[in-house]
């Protein structure tokens, strides 16, 4: 296979990992919303935890994006 073509296919495949981050973020915010609608008074106290979870989950998607970017620009 042409190495340049393989590089681009690999970059596209690496982006599939972001699907997992998408599922995770949807789960995170969905669960927070359903929990905070049940008990709105407790929601404000948990907002830092929500943002921490957001950043930790988002970072995993960024890792796969990083692999794609490395393939595109660095390899």
């Amino acid at each position, binding site marked *: 296979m042409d190495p340049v073509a393989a590089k681009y296919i690999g970059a596209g495949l690496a982006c599939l990992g972001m699907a997992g981050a998408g599922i995770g973020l949807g789960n995170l915010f969905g669960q927070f919303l359903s929990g905070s609608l049940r008990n709105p008074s407790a929601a404000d106290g948990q907002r830092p935890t929500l*943002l*921490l979870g*957001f*950043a*930790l989950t*988002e*970072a995993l998607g*960024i*890792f796969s*994006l*990083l692999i794609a*970017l490395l393939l595109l*620009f*660095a390899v």
Partner: protein
Amino acid sequence: MASPTEQFAITPLSGPLFHISNAPIAFTNSAAFMVAVVLIVVVFCLTTSARPSLVPGRLQNVGELFYEFVANTVRQSAGHDAMGFVPFVFALFSFVLVANLLGLLPYSFTVTSHIIVTAALSLLVIGTVIVYGFAKHGVGFLKLFVPSGVPGWLLPMLVVIEVISFLSRPISLSVRLFANMLAGHIALKIFAGFVTSLLAAGFWSVLSPLPLLLTVALSALEMLVAVLQAYVFAVLTSIYLHDALHPGH
């Protein structure tokens, strides 16, 4: 068109100051921005604490808010006996925060988008945890790797997993910050590049405002990410310090 990775190029601003085994060490744009970051933080802290009074004025309030935010984070994640580490976490938090935000300015350089910088920061954190843990608990610090209340036949496997998870902490801590900054800035540059390539596309240049709007939205997201990643770095640092203080699970 310039490559999206051009913004991360490190260029020497001076001639080589000295050599370490034939590698020239010069004052680079990265070093200049690190100096700028430290200057901003120091000037901020000095001005907000210049004339302390019992009833804080406006400036002093800003400084105290900033400091108490970090102090509360440490108290919540690491416990009361970790309050001695507040200056350490405060220094890390303010350095990462100001470096991230400074990098968002057009034509500036993002210090934290280089893994060597974030790796040095996270190795400092993990080194502090290991040295302090052994200094405080001696060999008892190794209890960190032995979870309590597990059946004996499972224990060897869990110890291996705990050791691996401990060793991967500096990697994940540094790669998280570096990858977020790198990917965010590259995405900004790529969408900005769409604007110029659409403008050159004849009739379809009517679509060029769309990627411009997306660039604005992405800048807002990057602002959030810059603050959030600094916060996450501080929180994870306090969680790891908690392990150094209380190695038993």
